């Protein structure tokens, strides 16, 4: 298999896998925060910043995969 085909197959797959992991992580964070707010609604303000930060760290992983894809997708030609 020429490496172009390998890249063409692997890059979308890599993005998808990274997004899968990020999605699970985001879902866990979101669920935990929702639970916490449901249990203690007055804590919503305090939970906001950690939630956003957790989202950011979680989602950064997909972004890394995304950037990697763009760095490598030029080779498919």
């Amino acid at each position, binding site marked *: 298999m020429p490496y172009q085909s390998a890249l063409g197959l692997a890059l979308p797959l890599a993005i998808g896998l990274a997004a899968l992991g990020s999605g699970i992580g985001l879902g866990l964070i979101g669920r935990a925060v929702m639970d916490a707010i449901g249990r203690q609604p007055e804590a919503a303000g305090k939970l906001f910043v950690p939630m956003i930060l*957790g*989202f950011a760290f979680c989602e*950064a992983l997909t972004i890394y995969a995304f950037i990697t894809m763009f760095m490598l997708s030029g*080779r498919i030609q």
Partner: protein
Amino acid sequence: MGIEFLVRARRVTLALTVLAALAGAVYGGLAFGLAIALGSLWSVGNVLFLEAFARLLVAGRLGRTPAMRDVAAVLGGLPALLLGGWALLAGGLPLLAVTLGFWILFAVVVLKGLGLALARSLDFATGRSGESPRAAVRRPLPSRRTQGLTGWALVALLAGGMVLWATAAPKPQAPAEHPAAAAPAGEHAAEGHAADAAPGAAEGHAAGGGHASGHPEGVPEMPTIPGVLAKLLPHAAWAQAFFVWENLFYALLAGVFLIVAVRWAFARPKLVPDRPQALVELIVEGAHDFLTGTFGPEMARYVPFVGSLFFYILTMNWMGMVPFLKAPTSSLNTTAAMAVVVFLYVQYTAIRHQGLFGYLHHMAGSPRDAIGWAVAPVLLPIELMGELIKPVSLAARLFGNIFGEDLLIAVFIGIGAAIMAWQPAPVGFPIHVLFMFLGLIMSAVQALVFSLLTAVYLYMALPHGHDEEHHGAGSGAQPAHA
């Protein structure tokens, strides 16, 4: 029918002519657009002539002295119109376009008449109080200034959209065919320019590569002012340079915009603020309350830095939604520069608050006993790496998000244009609007994340962030101690 009706119809016709001529020029070439414009102008000239003629007749019947202008218009207009019509027909311009242009005025008059006939239902639709068609015709025109401003603003908007579309349409495979696009231009100019065209093309190519910061060719991008300029003037060195530096230009633009807006709002600060001042005060107060409420009162010192970062980034991100502008943050260079600034400022703050030795002690994992000192040589590089990875992740996160979001919008604009490609009008299906809403939210969240992380890093550099367990890069997620 009053004469106002004709005046209105004429103005609308002129505006429509500009648009139609532009569309014609985009589609059928320059001659086609010119023919549309000339045909429309000729019909407007006819109407002017008829108006003058009617005024003369009325004046004659009422026994008034006719205005000299009307006499001149009738006497001089007839041969001028005949001559103009002959020139139009014999001038070799595409007759189809001339006819199209000629019919614009009639279309406007018919549509306006229909609108008046349906005035009642229109009133219902626009929520205006019902007025009879007669009153609608006699209603005095709005002031010329208002008319001009709103009318031409509308025309400019539509024309801008058209040019945008025209330049965006071949985009999806655009950067790769940069040399190909420049080649016909060189051919067209002359054979002597062939040597000239090659460096220009190479430069454009380099510019495309450079400004997408190492991204592969073929990434669809919406046109920007420097991009359009560089395309129009493939030989002008300044346009190419402008194109290469466009991110810097837009970043500066965002900064200038913020500074000017705030300066304007606070030009004459009052105790009882007016609207702009109140808005800015509200925003600044909100940022202050948010930061001090989340991290504690000692963060008040860093509100200007973090708040400016937030609004600067927000402005830059939202610039990606505006036609002909570009989000400078969709280039890694911009975000990396900001991340470096944040990194240096955080290190400076840490050293300033902990002292040089305290800083090093902290970097070695704050050893207290013999075991702590023993593992310090291992912890030091890890902590160092943790510090160094922060700006990298900051820059990559912001860049990746904004770049991906703008790319998404550009791709969907392309899809929208492809959907509507079966019909000749230069319109696309606005499928990307959904993603623009998403983009608005994502831009705000990313600006918040960047500035919030900066705040966290600053907070961790303050002395009392010291006692908390925060080893490793991502541990700053627990700042909300109270």
